[in-house]
C-alpha cells in the first residue's frame, strides 16, 4: 500500500544523491527535470498547467514595462480561477498525500494549491518591484522543485534563488535532512495518523453531533491536522535540505502564540504570510481599512482549503476572532491589565486561542445547520 508520500521521498532522495555526479552547471536543471518527470508521471494535467503558467509569468515579466494593474490582475485572476476550478477534481490541498497510490481523481491536479500561490507571488512581487525579470530557466528551477511540489511550504523565490548558486554536496546537511524527513514521518504517520486519527478517534462516541460533541471532534481535527501537516512540512523541508537547499519553516510552535493574529503567523506560516502579503496588504493598500483587509485575507485562507459556504463562513469566523482579540487587547491595555509572562498565563492565552479556533465548526454547523 504505497502512498504518494513514500514514493516521493524515495524519488527525491535518489535525485538528491545522483545530482552530485553531474557537472555543476547542470545540477539545478537536472533536479528540476527529475521533479518535472515525477509530476508529469503522476499528474500530467497539473504538470502541463504549471508549465503553461510559468511560461505566462515569464512572458509577463519580459513583456512591455508597465506599472498598470491590468495585466497582473488578469494573471492573478486566471491562476485563482484555474485553482478553484481544479477543486472540482482535487478535493483538498493535501488529498494527494493521504491518498493511496492509484486514486487518480484525487491527484489529478496535485500541487495546484501550492504552485498557484507561488505563481501569484511571482506576479505581484514583479509588479510591486520586488523582483526583476527572471530567466525562464531559473523560473523552472523554482517551480519544478520536487520537495515542495505536493504539500508546500509555499517557499518564496528570493531566498530560493539566492541559494541556487551555492548548492553543493554537504554530507552534514544531507544527514540532517534525512533525519528531518524521518521525524516528519513519525509526526504525520505515527502520531497524527495512527495515534490520534485511528486510535483516539475511535474512542469518540459514534453520535458526537451535539454542540459539544462537534466541538470535541473539531478540537481533535485541529490536533490531527497539526501533526499531519507539520509532519509533512518537515518531510518537505528535510527533502529540500538533502537537495542542498534551505526552505522556509511552516510551523513555529503555534502553542506559544500570544493572540489569534500571532497564531496565524505561526501556523502554516508560508500560507498565512502569503495571505498577508498578497491579500491583506493589497486590500489594505487599496481600501486603507484594516477590517475589510483581515476579512478578505481570512476568507481567502478558508477558501484555499475548500470552495464551500462552510469555509467562507469559517474565514469570517476567524477574521472576527482577530478583530475581537485586537479590540480586547487594546481595551485591556487601556485599563492597564497586563498578563504576566509565565507558563500559566501562556496556557490561558492558548486556551482562549484554541477555543476560538475549534469553535468555528460547532458554531457554524449549529447556526446554519443543514445549509452548510
Amino acid at each position, binding site marked *: 500500500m504505497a502512498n504518494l508520500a513514500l514514493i516521493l521521498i524515495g524519488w527525491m532522495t535518489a535525485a538528491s544523491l545522483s545530482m552530485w555526479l553531474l557537472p555543476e552547471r547542470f545540477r539545478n536543471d537536472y533536479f528540476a527535470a527529475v521533479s518535472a518527470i515525477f509530476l508529469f508521471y503522476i499528474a500530467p494535467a497539473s504538470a502541463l498547467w504549471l508549465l503553461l503558467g510559468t511560461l505566462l509569468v515569464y512572458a509577463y515579466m519580459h513583456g512591455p514595462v508597465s*506599472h498598470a*494593474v491590468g495585466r497582473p490582475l488578469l494573471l492573478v485572476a486566471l491562476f485563482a480561477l484555474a485553482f478553484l476550478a481544479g477543486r472540482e477534481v482535487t478535493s483538498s490541498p493535501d488529498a494527494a498525500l493521504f491518498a493511496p497510490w492509484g486514486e487518480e481523481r484525487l491527484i489529478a491536479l496535485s500541487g495546484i494549491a501550492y504552485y498557484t500561490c507561488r505563481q501569484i507571488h511571482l506576479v*505581484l*512581487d514583479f*509588479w*510591486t*518591484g*520586488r523582483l526583476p525579470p527572471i530567466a525562464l530557466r531559473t523560473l523552472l528551477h523554482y517551480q519544478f522543485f520536487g520537495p515542495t511540489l505536493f504539500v508546500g511550504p509555499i517557499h518564496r523565490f528570493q*531566498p530560493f534563488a*539566492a*541559494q541556487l*548558486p*551555492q548548492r*553543493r554536496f*554537504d554530507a*552534514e546537511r544531507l544527514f540532517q535532512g534525512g533525519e528531518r524527513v524521518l521525524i516528519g514521518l513519525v509526526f504525520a504517520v505515527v502520531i497524527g495518523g495512527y495515534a490520534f486519527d485511528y486510535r483516539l478517534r475511535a474512542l469518540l462516541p459514534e453520535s458526537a453531533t451535539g454542540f459539544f460533541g462537534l466541538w470535541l471532534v473539531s478540537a481533535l481535527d485541529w490536533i490531527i491536522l497539526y501533526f499531519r501537516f507539520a509532519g509533512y512540512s518537515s518531510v518537505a523541508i528535510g527533502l529540500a535540505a538533502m537537495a542542498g537547499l*534551505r526552505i522556509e519553516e511552516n510551523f513555529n510552535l503555534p502553542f506559544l502564540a500570544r493572540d489569534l*493574529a500571532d497564531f496565524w503567523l505561526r501556523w502554516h506560516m508560508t500560507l498565512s504570510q502569503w495571505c*498577508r*502579503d498578497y491579500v*491583506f*496588504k*493589497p486590500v*489594505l*493598500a*487599496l481600501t*486603507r*481599512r*484594516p477590517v475589510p*483587509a483581515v476579512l478578505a485575507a481570512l476568507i481567502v485562507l478558508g477558501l484555499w482549503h475548500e470552495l464551500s459556504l462552510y469555509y467562507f463562513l469559517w474565514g469570517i469566523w476567524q477574521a472576527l476572532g482577530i478583530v475581537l482579540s*485586537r479590540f480586547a487587547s487594546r481595551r485591556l491595555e487601556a485599563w492597564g491589565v497586563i498578563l504576566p509572562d509565565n507558563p500559566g498565563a501562556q496556557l490561558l492565552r492558548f486556551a482562549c486561542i484554541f477555543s476560538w479556533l475549534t469553535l468555528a465548526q460547532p458554531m457554524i454547523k449549529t447556526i446554519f445547520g443543514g445549509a452548510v
Partner: protein
Amino acid sequence: MFESIVETLPGTNEAEKDAAGFYAGIQAAARAGSVFAIFEDGRMAYAELDDQLRRTVGFLRTLGLARQDRILIQTQYERHAIVLFVAAFLEGLVPVLLSPDTPDDRVSSIARHIEAGHAFIDRHLFLERAWLRERPATIVGDEAPRSTLLERLRRHVPGNAQSLYPGCLAASEALAPSCCSAEDDLAYILFTSGTTADPKGVMITHGNMFSHLATFRRLFGYDRHSVLFNNMALGHADGLFQGPILALYSECLLYRPQPFEMRNIEKMFARVREHGVTHLVTVPTILALLDAYTDSPDYFSAPEFRYLFSVSAKLDVGLWQRLEARFGKPIVNIYGLTETVTGGLYALPEHERRSGAVGIPVDMEARIDGGGDSGELMLRGSAVTPGYFRNGPATDALFVDGWMRTGDLAHAYADGAYAIIGRLRALIMCGGFNIHPEEINEVLMRHPLVVEAVSVGIEDPTWGELPVSVVLVSEPISESDLATHCRQHLEERKCPKRILVEETLPRGDAGKPQLSRVAALVRTRLNENRASSSAVDAEKIVALAATVFKVSPETLSLETTPENTKGWDSFSHITLVATAEEAFGVKIEARKIIAMSSLRDLFDAVVAARALVRS
C-alpha cells in the same frame, strides 16, 4: 584566563619560514598542482605563479638594480601586482605598492621620496604622468592593447618605458629568486598615512613580516587546505598581508572576488559556501550591512568554515553579538596598525565579548603609557616597524623608550585584555579606512579661494565616521565646486561628505582650531540644515514611526523592519503610511505600500511621491 590560552598555544619557533622557505612553499604547491587564487576574471595556479615569478626575477635582474632598491608598483591588474610584489621582496628589493586610485601628485611625491629604482605603472597612468618620463619604468597591461591613434602617436613620448609587463616576460630568463635577505632588510614599505608634503612610509622588515606570519598561522590554523576570502584593497595592510602574503605563506587558496557593494553583498557572502571558504577577512562596515540587509543564517554554516575576522576598525559589541548569535560562528576581532604589520591584539572566540574590548596581545607586549589602567596603548614586539622610511622626525615621534605609540587611548583589564576608549591621533575612521584629516585639509588648501580648512569625523551608524570639512574662504564659492576640487586630488573614499563654508572657526588659546568644537559646530550645522529644509528626511520618518509604534525613536532606524519591531504589525502598517502621507502631503501608490518592508522603503516611497507632486 587569557594567559592560559596563550600558554597552551604551540611555540613560535615551530615551522617558521624565511624568504627561502616562503619560496620553497610556493614551489611545493606548484608541484602539487594547487590553485593559488581565484580572481574575478579567473584562476591562477601556483605553477603559473611560480613561472611568472621566476621570469619576473629574470626581468628584474636585467634592470641593474641594487639590493634594497625601491620598486614602485601601481596597477589595477591584481595578479600582476601580486607577482611583482612577491618577486621584488624575494629578490631583496623593496616593493612599494600603491592603490590604483592614488592621485598623481601623491604618487609623484612618494616616487621622489623613495627614489624609486624602477616603476611598474598602468598604461593610462603612465601616459598622464610627465614626471615618469625621467624615471626608468615599465608599463603594466595586457598584451595587444586596443590603442587609439592618438595613443599610438603619444606612445613615442615615453621613450624610457622599457616594455610592456607581462609581455616582456616571454623574452626573459626564468631564474629562482635570490631569497638572501637578512632579518633587518626591508620586505616592503606601505604608504597608508602621511600627507603629500610629509609622506610616511611604514617600513616592514623581513623579520617583522615572517614573525607575524608565524603568529597568524599558529593562531588561526592556516594550512594548505585553507581557503582565504579577502577582497580588501591590496594597497592596504589588511588586504595585502592577510591576503596574498598569508595565502602564499600557508600555500593555500586565496579567493579575491570584486569588492563588496550594497547590491552584491548577499551574492558575495553566498559564495563563501560555494568556494569552501575557511577564513574570511572583512571590516565592520560590511558586517553592519550584512546585519541590516541580509537575513540568511546560512552563509557560514559549512563545516569547514572556521573564522570570520573583523579588521581595520572598531567592531560594535551589539553587532558582534548579534552576528555571532545569528551565524553560530565566532567573529575574531583583530586590532593592529600598519605599523605592526597588521595585527597585535586578538579577540579569540574564547574571550568574553566586552564593550570596547579589542582583544589580548599575542606575540606582542602591550602596556598603558604611564602604567595606569587607562592611557595611550603602547606596543613592543617583533612585528613592530622600525619606523617611517627616511622620515626621522616622524619615526622619533612614534617611539618612546623603545615602545611604539599607537595613538589610541585604551583601558587595560586585569585579565590582559584591552579596550579602546578613544583616540589621540587626529584620524577619521570611515568604513575600515583611515583618513588623515591633514590630507583632506592639504587638498582643500590648494584651492585658490580657500584660506583655511579643518576636517573632522562625524559619527555614523554604518560607516563608523564620515569625513566633513569646514573651510574659511576669501570669496564666496559653492560646496559643489569644492567637492569637485577634492575629487580631482583625493581618492574617492577620502573625499569629505560635506564641505561647510564658515565665517570663523572655534579656536584655542594658541589660535589653532579646536577639533572637538569644530565637530560640535558641524553637528549643529547639519541639524540646522535638516530642520530648516522641508525635504523628506530620515529622522522625521523615524520619529513618525516611533509615534505610530509607540516606541522610543532611538530604537528605530531606516533599517527597521516589521520583523525587528514590536509595534509594527499588519494593522499599524497602514496607520504608518497614512501618517507619513499626511505629514509630507503626498499620496503613496498602492503597489509601494504592498512592497514596503522597511522604514527605508517608506522613505523612498515618500521621496518618489514628492518628486511626482513637484513634476
